[in-house]
């Protein structure tokens, strides 16, 4: 992997990010009418004050001026002040990143792990009852809307069988610290993480299954068998490593969605992360917040795509540049 190749990839990512930055701005200016008027409707704020706010939010400036300001400030990592909370957007995002990383990260890891294992088992026993049950069950969850799956789990395991809390991130009113707080957090994490894991499982299972099926037709497996290797060894040493390639790429790309992943599930379970912040910001609409969130989401996806590109090259000598 030479420096020029890596440099080219990084440059490509940066130009994508700049493109996103520009689209971001105009996208929200197209849908917007008068955020100040709609935000303050029915409050005691007199009209003169509203005009002043429009001015203060820069909404009275012509579009090109707004754009220049936006690009300049974003380059300085200043995403502006949220209309709703009046706090810097970056502070707002920072305080919500970790809950989302925890929830979606755990779900991403679990779903990749179990999805890949399930997919490989299904492929290896292609056509059997095991294959059928793994494929169809993961597909059922995959095709189910995740908020609906979340509601079902909530009703099942928090209401009918009250094993888990109905939402939130910690038990309010208890002042548990240390290990108890960690257990409490895991207790609250269980249902939303399970929902997302089930929802993501199908994608990995299908990709892993078809990838292994592809590999299974290859000559080198026949050779391996001819060498007298046991079935298990053939699978572990020869089939699985080669079949993993596309799955690893998928996993890397999916990691990019860890930040933006869970608007619906975070809302169902009251998990205070970026997904819910997005939903709340749309209601306003809180343009600076939305711009900031979308930029962070896009940056994450672009970054992990870059990582996927590089990892792929490292894993698979065939695509290595000469």
């Amino acid at each position, binding site marked *: 992997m030479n420096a020029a190749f890596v440099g080219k990839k990084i440059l490509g990512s940066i130009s994508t990010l700049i493109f996103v930055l520009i689209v971001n701005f105009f996208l929200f200016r197209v*849908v917007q*009418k*008068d955020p100040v*008027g*709609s935000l303050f*409707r*029915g*409050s*005691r*704020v007199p*009209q003169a*004050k509203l005009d*002043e*706010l429009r001015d*203060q939010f820069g909404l009275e400036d012509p579009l090109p001026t707004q754009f220049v300001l936006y690009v300049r400030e974003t380059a300085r990592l200043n995403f502006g002040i949220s209309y*709703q*909370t*009046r*706090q*810097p957007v970056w*502070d*707002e995002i920072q*305080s*919500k990143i*970790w*809950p989302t*990383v*925890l929830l979606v*990260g*755990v779900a991403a*890891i679990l779903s990749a792990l179990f999805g890949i294992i399930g997919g490989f088992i299904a492929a290896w026993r292609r056509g059997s009852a095991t294959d059928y049950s793994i494929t169809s069950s993961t597909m059922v969850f995959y095709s189910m809307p995740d908020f609906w799956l979340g509601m079902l789990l*909530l*009703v099942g395991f*928090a*209401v009918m069988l*009250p094993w888990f*809390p*109905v*939402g939130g*991130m*910690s038990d*309010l*009113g208890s*002042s548990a*610290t*240390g*290990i*108890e*707080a*960690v257990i409490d*957090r895991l207790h609250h994490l269980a249902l939303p993480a399970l929902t997302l894991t089930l929802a993501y499982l199908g994608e990995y299972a299908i990709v892993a299954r078809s990838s292994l099926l592809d590999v299974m037709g290859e000559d080198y497996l026949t050779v391996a068998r001819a060498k007298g290797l046991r079935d298990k060894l053939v699978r572990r040493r020869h089939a699985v490593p080669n079949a993993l390639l596309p799955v690893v790429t998928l996993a890397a790309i999916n990691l990019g969605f860890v930040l933006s992943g869970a608007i619906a599930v*975070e*809302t*169902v379970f*009251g998990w205070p992360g970026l997904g819910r*912040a997005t*939903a*709340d910001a749309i*209601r306003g*609409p809180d343009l600076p917040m939305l711009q900031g969130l979308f930029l962070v989401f896009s940056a994450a996806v672009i970054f992990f795509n870059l990582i996927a590109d590089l990892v792929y090259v490292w894993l698979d000598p065939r695509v290595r540049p000469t």
Partner: protein
Amino acid sequence: MSRRLLGTGLLVGAVFAGISATPAAAQDDVTLIVGLTQPWETLNPVVGFAVPEYEVWNIQYTGLTTRSADDFSAEPGLAESWVENEPGLSYTYTLREGLLWSDGEPITAEDVAWNINTSRDQEWSNYISTVTNLTAEVVDDRTVTVTSSVPDPRLPAVEIYVLPKHVWEAQASPETIDSYDGLDGVGSGPFTISDYRSEESLTMTANENYYDGRPVIDTIIFRYFSNPDAMVAALQRGEIDAAQGLPASSVSQLEGEENIEVVVGFQGGFDEIAFNAGAVEGQPHPAVLDFGFRTALNHAIDKAGATEDLWFGLAESATTISVSADPKWIPEIPEDELFAYDPDVAISMLDDLGYVDTNGDGFREMPGGGDNIVLRHAVNTDSDLGGAMGELFSGWMNAVGIDVELSAYDQDQLFGVIVDGTYDTFYWGWVPFVDPDPMLSYFTEAELYNYNDANWTNARFEELYLEQKEEVDVDRRIEIVHEMVRILHDDAAYVALWYSPDIQAVRTDRFEGYVRQPADIGPVIFSQSSPSYALLQPVGADEGTTGTTDSTDDTVEGSGDEAGAGTTAAPTDGDASDTDTDTGTGTDDDGESDGGGDGDGDNTTVILIVVIAVLVVGAGVALVLKRKGSADDRE
């Protein structure tokens, strides 16, 4: 392999050991947990306007005067009494003796005057409409005179939160005041903010210095639910003690529950279908500008049916808009002027006016023929009932031969469509304040292109608006306001559909002493001045158990009587000031550093992420080493 695992185990162990060092706090506090379905945006009372924010400020700050729980009349707040120097123009207030902020600093006349004068000079968003003509003058530490440059019927009530000058002075400049987070936790009310986790919860702690005695409850926790069904479940499981903003559909499910009482409270909110009256550039269909046409369509709107279907019998269908949380401002409309629902009347009126169907396609045209009349109805997609109302409206209109085209807008877009005037009808709602002035102002010329959403104006209404604004005789002002509401009603342009209720529920096995505001019909929490919290007591705590088991209206109403007695029974503020300083500073540090949302809650998250990441990386390294090992074996 086993050595590697051991290594990871040790690391994880070390991380856990690091966090379990902090001891667990005492648990025997009396804690009230209230669920709500709307999040806080900012806790700065100068700029915030969301319902849960008002609840927190109502609890944390006391005004110079407060609102009575029964009828909103002005009651002593920080001021124990006042003298009228000149009706509507000048009042002198005497503050209670020995008032202290929750951090132990004295509350003085200077605090009050500073709030009024500074907010006027700096035009604080939420204060300016109240203080714009007011001037406050300190007479001595406990005496302050407030004068208005024009007669102000709202006096002697001064409806602003009096903020602690010693905390807010540093924030009070036009550049910085709006972005202050308001998390200092210094107040004069029964509880003050001690912890805030944005989008999650807000905790308030009893104020030892509260002038009416420290409340019985130690801590209130407001818990935000983004999923209302989860809140219903939490209430059923007893995870929360009270809930605000329940979905109407959940009421039948809760009503059968033991120990849960549903409270349907009214404080003036209403929903309406408005016709574009055409006072801005974008014009409605010409038919809509015809008073006769609008009147006919009013008769085609089935308010009672819609109310029953959409609110499951919990709301009351409306006769006219309400301009205040206080029902005395709503006029009685004679039965025969109510545009009663009767499609046949609508049909014959439309026929008489010449709006007939000449081309036989089932829809009417303008008198003299031409294209069908198609009403552009704007559906508000941010409203839970917007879609349903669009369908209902279109059904009512079709039934009398009027075609309707539905277009969906979110709230922001709808606001734009209204300002542009490119609609014929829309459905939306309002929640008025106690004073009728703001709601009335939404139908004046000054509010065109802003909150005058029907683009409706009327010369007589305009005159009366200015008159009521300075009418200090309450009875006369009520008369004027009634006349104004009648004018709006009679023009058939703004059709109030129902008075929207606040649906709440409380667990009757946990606390008693909830008070409705206004009396008999209002909600028990999230009301105009939120008087319940200071009066609540754990069930069976002190004097017997009034209405513990009879889970009907008795609990709420019965405890209202008891309320006055209950307050003074609480322990007084003796040596409490030192305990409180702790609370104050603690909050300060938290709030300043990261805009709230911090504390051990977030540490736990980060620690978990670190532990999980270590495990995953460890497993990955183990896997790679193992593969490398086996690859070596092969060679």
